[in-house]
């Protein structure tokens, strides 16, 4: 109701200074048309490589390398060939378990930590936070061999548990930092009031903090899921067959002999489809969470 009221006059009032001579209605229409065209053109341009990949997956190998064309008879042959060579679901399942498992674990560890940083800051809080973030800037290749030896000795190679642990720790700095910014924006009085009523810390976190910052926590979690899903270094190097996620699936199609573009496109489409759909469905949620905290 209110939005409609404020927005309509805003569009109407925008005109007068610039478009003195032209009818305001016509100019508004032209402006809207231009805006629509521009918005859609840019969106399509950005999306084009993905669109093209999906399209190529439905072509035959020889059509895939012919001159670009939108007209072709679609075929599922690449999908069938790809599925025959590698069972998609095993890989997809691993991706799901590891991405969501590590996100859950990271949130569980990060919430108390971010809580204390936001509400009981010490002189070292900011230092700790930045140090945490700087650990993310280490190139993982540099520590592969130590980690590999460590994992070998504790039997974590090629296990979902092992990969989950790595991803949890990998995303922890970002998760802690984002939660910290969300928590910090919460008015202190609310928690204060809760404490006055005799709430313990645990109650305070569970019944006040979490419900109030849920959108923020959700968007942090979503980001963590996406980052874990797309991670391609640790997943390739620490797994072999049982725990291999979709990034390893892609690596088995990435540059084989002969013509492979259609098959590669089909495999890629299958590998990104779940996370893409997940991202589309949750983007509103993500935006809501982000508005709430970090970037307000």
């Amino acid at each position, binding site marked *: 109701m209110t939005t409609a009221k*404020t927005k309509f006059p*805003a569009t109407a*009032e*925008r005109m007068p*200074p*610039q478009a003195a001579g032209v009818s305001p209605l016509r100019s508004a229409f032209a402006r*809207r048309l231009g*805006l*629509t065209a*521009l*918005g859609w053109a*840019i*969106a399509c341009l*950005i999306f084009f*490589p*993905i669109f*093209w*990949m999906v399209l190529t997956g439905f072509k035959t190998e020889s059509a895939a*390398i012919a001159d*670009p064309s939108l007209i072709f008879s679609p075929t599922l042959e690449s999908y069938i060939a790809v599925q025959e060579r590698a069972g998609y679901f095993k890989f997809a399942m691993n991706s799901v378990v590891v991405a969501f498992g590590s996100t859950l674990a990271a949130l569980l*560890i990060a919430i*108390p*930590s971010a809580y*204390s940083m936001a509400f*009981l800051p*010490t002189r070292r809080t900011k230092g*700790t936070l930045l140090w*945490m*973030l*700087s*650990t993310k*800037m280490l*190139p*993982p*290749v*540099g*520590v592969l*061999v*130590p980690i590999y030896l460590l994992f070998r000795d504790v039997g974590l190679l090629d296990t979902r548990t092992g990969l989950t642990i790595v991803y949890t*720790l990998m995303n*922890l700095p*970002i998760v802690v930092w984002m939660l910290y*910014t969300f928590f910090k924006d919460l008015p202190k009085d609310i928690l204060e009031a809760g404490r006055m009523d005799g709430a313990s810390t645990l109650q305070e976190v569970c019944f006040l903090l979490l419900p109030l910052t849920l959108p923020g926590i959700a968007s942090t979690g979503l980001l963590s899921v*996406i980052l874990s899903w*797309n991670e391609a270094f640790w997943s390739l190097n620490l797994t072999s067959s049982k725990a291999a996620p*979709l*990034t390893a699936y*892609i*690596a088995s199609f990435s540059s084989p002999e002969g013509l492979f*573009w259609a098959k590669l*496109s089909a495999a*890629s489409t299958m*590998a990104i489809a779940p*996370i893409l759909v997940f*991202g589309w469905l949750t*983007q509103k949620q*993500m935006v809501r969470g982000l*508005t709430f905290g970090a*970037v*307000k």
Partner: protein
Amino acid sequence: MTKTRAAGRTVGGLRTLSLQAPAVTLLLLWMIVPLAMTVWFSLQRYNLLMPEMTGFAGLENYRYLFTDPALWTAMGNTLLLVGSVLAITVVGGTLLAVLFQQEFPGRGVARVLAISPFFVMPTVSALVWKNMMMHPSNGVLSWLAESFGLPAVDWFSSLPLTSIIIIVSWQWLPFALLILLTAIQSLDDDQVEAARMDGAGPVAIFFFITLPHLKRAISVVIMIEMIFLLTIFAEIFVTTSGGPGLATTNLAFLIYIQALLDFDVGMASAGGVVAVILANIVAIFLVRMVAKNLES
């Protein structure tokens, strides 16, 4: 007054400790164990392929690393890559955020299309760009160029770093867009209205109201992107393998060559230590630049 505060701090301190403990301990382990191993290995003569060559090497690994002419090229490339991508995504993201903030038919769908590349695995997007967009004879771009009668560009050999920058920017532009769009939505309409009443044009509004409002969000974008851009690897590995020459070798890739082609753990560890130090310098730099914005 002073007394109560002091008492509060001790209680708080205790609580802080117990709450931060899990995250900090885990991160500490994650950081310290590999870091200690890395520092230790960096002082050793240790090559996985030469089991007989062992022993304390002192600073020899570092000497080799710093006399390697490739190191400085790699650092330069790293900075150039990070800088260019940041510039493109922040500027592009801001402009796109303003565009997608305007109302036009199908805005929701257009937005979803425009943020999609963020959900695509880096390996997949590199493969798609390499094989289907930038391929010198069958890529869409070369086909476009040829249909306009222009010579096809051989992207990865004539403009290697530019190509990498394009691919990486394509992946991160949606992220910047997402965050900035979120931030722009919280812009106070009344403030914009008031400025417009005072006769400010759209450009003035952008520079004097929108941009300052986005300052904090831009800091967030820079911070998070920086973390990931410093360790860009998959895109280079898939497309150019660091070449031609050293044209696209960044620090992460240089360490990869040492660690996984040479299996020279000593040298790779030295590279890792240097990267940690570099990351911390960047982190300190970031504190100055970003933390101030985050405070407000």
